[in-house]
């Protein structure tokens, strides 16, 4: 016979409504009786399993059905999401948390002017931006850069200059083929494809045959690699150490002394211009490429898990029309599950063409858009006073005058377009009347710089009908904003992601091709304006790496008109 009082107390415990006295009473019962402890598990395991069952049952239903049930939930608040994101944020933040906080309060406003279509001809395509990369950042883990100018991420081209690492570790591959691992705190200057300068820090180099002759300068010594692997340790208030693990290196103290040759297993400690032989060398004191890769991969997994757990909260925003996160889908799936649970949530999305590929993290689903026919299509009926778009994409190239993010083809008043220009600027536009002057456009300056091509970025566009304001965002930061010229309801109808297929008769040939080239692994559309703080938080939790939080917006002067 189950004690009814115990059940009442257990339910109050599960619902978070135990008073202090009730809690004492419950604890006493649980300590005293084995049967009570068993009842505890019977009742509380039901709590956890019902949670899972409810999520699975409702998550699997058509959006309309869930939306019907959800009518009870007026205003499932995004405020709750933001507050839990905030809390979650401190848990997950590994490094650079201070930068995050600083940037939350750092918004730049860039007024933009409307452009005529003729202006498009004068836009400089992103691809023509010059680059003088001599190396590439291939891996990174736990990186905190000392200065904003350094905020490159794995996969970035590196130009000559200083890399200043407060903590963490990076792997840099030089164009000569030499590759170095540097552990912070460290200051490394990239000089040429076969030369670098280490002011401080721990460096190990792997130099394959074609790169022999690779040089690392330090204030006390110059190391020239003649073989394969060596380590260089220059920490404050300690003599600099050079250790050879494989092959041989040449060590030169200054021009007056002849260079000294070190073989595998040999090392020298240098102080006051003298090189003392070391008793033994120890490669395990340096971070190995394997260990670096392992740490990086663990970091990425952690972020992926963290994103997963907060991302699903978007589904319960009552204004969510579309939320595609490309998760838990199979490579043959031709439809995308719309996880939005808002009252006006749209149905599922259809995939045309497009290959399933990896997204922001290894294992995360995404779609690759590369052919002129690749697209995702869904129907978004109705009129909206406000709309917010947020997506995560990896832009590979911008081959067309306009490159579609989300376009419609109604040719009606209120139709809303979101796209990227060939020069890397972003545009949100709403049709007012026919003809090219009939568009209310917000155009950013070129924000997709060459350095961002091939990297995952968050893009967002907000039409705030209450304020009458249009805004654009890149990686959580506002990049353009203006007051709308007209106030009018917005319409979408058949929404196409990554492409545009208007009836051929309606479209001028020059503007017909708008296919997007790149990957998309999340798309969200809400029928309410998102605040810049909300977009900022969505960025913080969606960004693929922890170190991305500074200076992606480093103005690239070469591509600015």
């Amino acid at each position, binding site marked *: 016979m189950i004690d009814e009082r115990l059940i009442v107390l257990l339910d109050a415990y599960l619902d978070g409504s*135990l008073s202090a006295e009730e809690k004492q009473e419950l604890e006493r019962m649980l300590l005293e009786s084995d049967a009570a402890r068993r009842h505890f598990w019977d009742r509380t395991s039901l709590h956890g399993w019902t949670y899972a069952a409810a999520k699975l049952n409702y998550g699997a239903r058509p959006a309309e059905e869930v939306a019907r049930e959800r009518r009870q939930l007026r205003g499932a608040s995004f405020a709750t999401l933001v507050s839990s994101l905030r809390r979650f944020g401190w848990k997950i933040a590994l490094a650079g948390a201070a930068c995050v906080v600083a940037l939350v309060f750092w918004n730049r406003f860039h007024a933009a002017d409307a452009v005529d279509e003729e202006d498009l001809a004068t836009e400089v395509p992103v691809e023509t931006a010059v680059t003088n990369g001599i190396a590439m950042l291939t891996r990174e883990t736990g990186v905190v850069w000392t200065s904003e100018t350094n905020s490159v991420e794995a996969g970035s081209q590196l130009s000559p200059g200083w890399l200043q690492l407060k903590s963490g570790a990076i792997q840099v591959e030089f164009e000569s083929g030499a590759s170095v691992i540097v552990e912070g705190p460290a200051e490394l200057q990239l000089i040429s494809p076969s030369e670098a300068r280490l002011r401080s820090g721990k460096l190990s180099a792997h130099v394959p045959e074609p790169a022999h002759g690779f040089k690392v300068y330090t204030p006390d010594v110059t190391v020239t690699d003649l073989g394969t692997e060596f380590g260089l340790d220059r920490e404050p208030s300690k003599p600099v150490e050079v250790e050879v693990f494989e092959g041989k290196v040449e060590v030169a103290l200054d021009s007056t002394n002849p260079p000294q040759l070190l073989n595998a297993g040999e090392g020298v400690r240098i102080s006051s211009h003298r090189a003392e032989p070391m008793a033994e060398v120890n490669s395990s004191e340096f971070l190995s490429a394997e260990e670096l890769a392992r740490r990086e991969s663990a970091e990425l997994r952690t972020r992926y898990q963290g994103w997963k757990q907060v991302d699903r909260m978007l589904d319960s925003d009552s204004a969510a029309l579309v939320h595609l996160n490309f998760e838990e889908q199979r490579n043959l799936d031709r439809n995308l599950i719309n996880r939005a649970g808002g009252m006006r949530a749209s149905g599922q999305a259809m995939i045309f063409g497009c290959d399933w590929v990896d997204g922001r993290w290894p294992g995360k689903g995404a779609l690759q858009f590369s052919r002129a026919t690749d697209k995702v299509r869904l129907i978004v009926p109705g009129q909206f006073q406000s709309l917010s778009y947020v997506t995560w994409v990896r832009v590979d190239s911008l081959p067309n005058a306009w490159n579609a993010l989300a376009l419609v083809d109604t040719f009606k008043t209120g139709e809303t377009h979101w796209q990227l220009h060939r020069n890397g600027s972003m545009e949100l536009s709403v049709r007012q009347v026919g003809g090219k002057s009939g568009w209310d456009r917000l155009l950013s300056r070129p924000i997709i710089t060459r350095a961002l091509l091939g990297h995952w970025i968050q893009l967002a566009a907000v039409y705030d009908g209450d304020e009458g304001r249009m805004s654009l965002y890149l990686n959580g930061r506002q990049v353009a904003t203006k007051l709308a010229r007209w106030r009018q309801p917005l319409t979408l109808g058949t929404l196409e992601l990554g492409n545009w297929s208007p009836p051929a008769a309606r479209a001028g040939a020059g503007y017909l091709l708008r296919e997007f080239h790149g990957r998309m692994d999340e798309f969200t559309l809400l029928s309410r304006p998102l605040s810049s703080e909300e977009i900022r938080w969505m960025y913080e939790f969606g960004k693929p790496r922890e170190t991305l939080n500074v200076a992606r917006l480093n103005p690239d002067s070469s591509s600015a008109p």
Partner: protein
Amino acid sequence: MAKDTQPNPPQDGGDAGALSDKTMRIQQLFIKHQLGLRAFILSLEPNFTDAEDLLQEVFLVVTRKANEFQEGTNFFAWACTIARYKLLESLRRRARSQELSEEVIEALCAVEPEAQFDDSRLVILQQCLEQLAPKARQMMFLRYYGEHSPSEIAQLVSWTPNAVRVALSRARSVLQECLERGLRQEGAK
């Protein structure tokens, strides 16, 4: 036709070689047991968001300590122990009004409740949930899918908080009976 069950992209794709094989296997075990683990955590930390945080911490510890796990032994029990330590640690850091004391938690875990968290219960409960009377189902939907507290639900459906608590409690009892019936049937097969 179109019955390819290969998830894409595969869980262990991409940089799989970067983690040790063992760590990978242990992470797979975590993923396999993650629903049961979350349910276990929710028993001791009924708040959904706090439980989610804890689950994430357990994932990190499991990854870090993968090498300490003896393969072939009970992964779920091992992960539950980690979850328990993590919970106690967080309670020591920040005492909360609703959580049970350390002593009670230890006494409860001595019962070895792992059997309660076998996945088979989930399947039965999913069916039970569908069989609930409409009002009870709505309560469960709001509480568990919408993650609303009883007082929030009270506002949404214009009831008194107490009426909501009673309704939730009844719905739970119906689910519990249904679950026990389902388990007995399964055992009889």
